[in-house]
């Protein structure tokens, strides 16, 4: 299961990102937990200075903007590391947008 965190102080843009992420997870049936982090000290621990930020499995993937649904989908589906070598089976259908 993926751990998704959204960092933001609770402004309108941050809520937009939360809604978008939840919509993508629901639409794609991704197994993920979504947590909203509003505590400023926790946000600073990720060295993020422009909110909202999207954190997947403790990696900051995007900050300071609300990415499009497709981008969010890519970010949520991408395997953490080395996806090219180990998961060749899916490549026939044109790929899911994971790296390379």
């Amino acid at each position, binding site marked *: 299961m993926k751990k998704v965190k959204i960092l*933001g*102080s*609770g*402004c*309108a*843009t*941050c809520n937009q990102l939360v809604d978008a992420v939840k919509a993508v997870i629901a639409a794609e049936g991704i197994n993920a937990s979504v947590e909203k982090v509003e505590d*400023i*000290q926790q*946000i*600073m621990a990720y*060295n*993020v*200075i*422009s*909110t909202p930020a999207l954190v997947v499995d403790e990696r900051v993937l995007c*900050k*300071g*903007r*609300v990415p*499009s649904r497709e981008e969010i989908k890519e970010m949520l589906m991408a395997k953490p590391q080395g996806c090219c070598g180990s998961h060749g089976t899916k490549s026939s259908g044109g790929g899911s947008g994971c790296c390379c």
Partner: protein
Amino acid sequence: MTQGFRQHLPRVFGQQNVQWFFSVVVGALLWMLLYNNLEGFASLSLQFAGIARANRFGEALYFFLYEVPKVLLLLTAVVFLMGVVHTFISAERTRALLSGRRTGVGNVMAATLGIVTPFCSCSAVPLFIGFLQAGVPLGVTFSFLISAPMINEVALALLFGMFGWKVALLYTVMGLAVAIIAGMVIGKLQMERFLEEWVQKLQERVVSAEVEGESMSLPLRIREGLHHVRDIVGKVWLYIVVGVGLGAGIHGYVPENFMASLMGKSVWWSVPVAVLIGVPMYSNAAGILPVVQALLGKGAALGTVMAFMMSVIALSAPEMIILRKVLKPRLIALFAGVVALGIMLVGFVFNLVL
């Protein structure tokens, strides 16, 4: 051979890039066509409605029909360009540029970068702490925090649309001056003790200011520009319509020189009063400007109007409340005081010179 070349071309430039590039060119041409025919559109609409421009109502209506599309078109263009520029300059990159800069050079750079760096007052707190952690001096950070909201694309587009490029440029230069000088004053006063304790503690944990290069494709940058248009124009268009509507009413019905006795050059106290009235106002800047423009036409002084506008945008109650989380009351008071003083000076100088 030719076929190979044909296949090769889109690969070099990217098929999508070419498509996006052409859509932008078409969009720009359409924009220019509309922008150059605003007067014709306004008088045509009046003719269709069977209203003559000669009477007061007709004049006010013409003003409205000409001014609303003009301001909205300008706003769209400026906001789009700024949205694209934002994809090149992130807050992280600005921080890296400002890290370790001395007072003076640092303040000038911070205020200038504040114009083009994406900034949302809701991320003012993480930005503030992040700057300090990466070794950006307090005064330099303040220069950025003053300039970023004050010299924004909405204000510039509205000023440009309603007062012309000279006033927009003057506003930018004066705004920069206020941000640079206020930041230098705060820096010289060694106010670090007036940060909240938890911020001082966080500040000890030094963070590197390095940025990992996030490269974006051209279509993505253009799409960010369009997103920015949707966000910003979607938020302020109603204010502009209502504001210009009010302005049109004033334009048609209030007698000439009505405002001269209240906001004219000879009334020295109008500048501080305008600044004080402007502080509690915030998001209504877009709607207030058109009214202010109409007042200007009725004898209000430009410096007074400018001071009012800067104060509405740069000193806002919501931002103070956000900053209160990291600053002790004394530093907040100093910040507001120094900026207000700077804005009043700008107002007085304008009224004297122009």
